[in-house]
């Protein structure tokens, strides 16, 4: 009966679009990692086994790109989560300009990455950038931010934080507002202090929501492409490259099979990290509720 009413035929075309343009490339499509596909060799491809994968894995650039991606993901996630929690906690109180403040804090989340990238290229610019201006004002020296690996990575992480804190605030805020107010009243009657209310009531109740946001932040951080492309283009050399931009770099150099290999390694890493995180966070969740 149910099969007749909700016939699978209805979702054929949508499912086909998803399978052909998403599932097939990211599963069967990785078969090209094991071929000799390159700019000069596009027809009659031959299988050459694990040669590309081994070559890519032993390449310094992959290790650099991987560590950078991990920094982009975890550096941003930690700071954004803490900032989101703090600012949401204060924004949750009732005062008159609350709506205006929320509107302002969420603003960066809707801007295109090219806008964020250019804003931060301007702020971190060596000669006239605001950051160096402030440093000079405080008696320090200007820094050539995009001239070195760690300064470049930090500048990119700053841009990420600026762009995604508003989103974290709103998610945390909406989780806080979904807590029934009688919980707080009951706690007040029992004589709980503000800090106790926060750690014993608010935190455990909003943890599942924050957790989802952490997963999103880690996944999107590992996948970071645009900001690196616009702010440093992976430079100097390949010092600030992320996994995403490394794929484009390999492709532009005509090493197609190597690009697919990097993509495959990247996709396996993402899968492992997100599964590991889910495993450990469900344990943390259990611990928090006991």
């Amino acid at each position, binding site marked *: 009966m149910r099969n007749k009413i909700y016939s699978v035929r209805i979702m054929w075309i949508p499912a086909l679009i998803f399978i052909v343009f998403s599932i097939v*490339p990211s599963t069967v499509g990785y078969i090209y990692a094991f071929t000799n596909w390159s700019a000069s060799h596009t027809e009659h491809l031959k299988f050459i086994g694990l040669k590309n994968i081994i070559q890519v894995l032993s390449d310094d650039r992959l290790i650099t790109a991987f560590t950078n991606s991990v920094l982009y993901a975890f550096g941003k996630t930690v700071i954004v989560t803490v900032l989101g929690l703090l600012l949401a906690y204060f924004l949750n109180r009732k005062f008159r300009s609350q709506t205006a403040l929320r509107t*302002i804090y969420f603003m960066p989340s809707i*801007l295109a990455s*090219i806008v964020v990238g*250019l804003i931060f290229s*301007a702020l971190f610019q060596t000669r006239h950038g605001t950051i160096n201006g402030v440093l000079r004002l405080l008696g320090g020296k200007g820094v050539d931010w995009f001239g070195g690996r760690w300064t470049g990575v930090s500048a990119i992480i700053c841009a990420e934080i600026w762009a995604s804190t508003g989103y974290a605030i709103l998610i945390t805020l909406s989780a806080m507002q979904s807590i029934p107010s009688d919980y707080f009243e009951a706690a007040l009657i029992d004589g709980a202090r503000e800090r106790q209310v926060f750690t014993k009531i608010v935190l455990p109740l909003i943890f599942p929501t924050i957790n*989802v946001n952490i997963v999103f932040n880690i*996944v999107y951080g590992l996948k970071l492409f*645009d900001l690196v492309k616009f702010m440093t283009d992976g430079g100097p050399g390949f010092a600030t490259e992320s996994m995403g931009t490394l794929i484009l770099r390999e492709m532009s150099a005509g090493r197609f099979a190597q690009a697919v290999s990097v993509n495959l390694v990247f996709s396996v890493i993402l899968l492992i990290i997100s599964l590991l995180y889910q495993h450990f966070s469900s344990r943390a969740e259990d611990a928090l509720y006991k």
Partner: protein
Amino acid sequence: MKRTGKKLIPEVVLWLLSIFIIYPLLMILLTSFKSKGEASYLNINLPTIYHFENYKKVIEKGFFRSLGNSIMVTAACMLLTIACASLLGFIIVRRDTRGCRIFYRIITLGIIAPFAALPTIRILKIMSLYGTRVGLCLVTTALNIPYTTMIISSYLKSIPRELDEAAVIDGTSGMTLFRRIIFPLLKPVLAAGLVVNFMWTWNAVEVPVYLLNSSYKWTLPLSIYNFVGQYSSYWNLVCADIVLLSIPVILLYVFCQKLMIGGMISGAVKA
């Protein structure tokens, strides 16, 4: 007296911190009206003369062509994604068989998986869709389906099945049931989904970079990136370009703030 003081402090601190957001945005807006020399200082001093012709210069450099591409691609992707995701959600949630649940898991894995750039290009080449806007739309839709299906499905679960059953007794099923009963009820979540998809597709860079090979098909973000490469020392023109790109999204944010925020956070809150 003490109570109001205690209440005021977080408000004041929050306003002080908001400078971190307002300052850069103001800098971009003001720089877009400056002369080239003044613009290079990248500060928030008011321009001595307002150069509105910066915008004219930017528009003359092929702005309308990329705007047309952006509008076309974004509109097509939004509608196609919403249509696909709502039908997928409808069948998966209502059938609720083991196969459907597995397929749903696979769809949500699409949020984690990175964009498989070259394999996608290869497939598009086989279908002779590489470098076309149609190909870009189909791939973007496939990549936006996971999140959109997720928010639509969680909303669908809150619509009682009894509504379907009443209609089924009257003899409707399949597409008719979807059109007459489910679709009208889904309107709030579909609106939120449309707004979110608009924003993502309008701002998207990674997929268009790989899939569009000729400049006359470029969407706005790509043409701006190219423009920055050519006129990197003209911060006034670059900023004018940024402002033009952001206007549609900001207008949408001002007028549909609830829908936009709702659409963006419902994936995390209801999951």
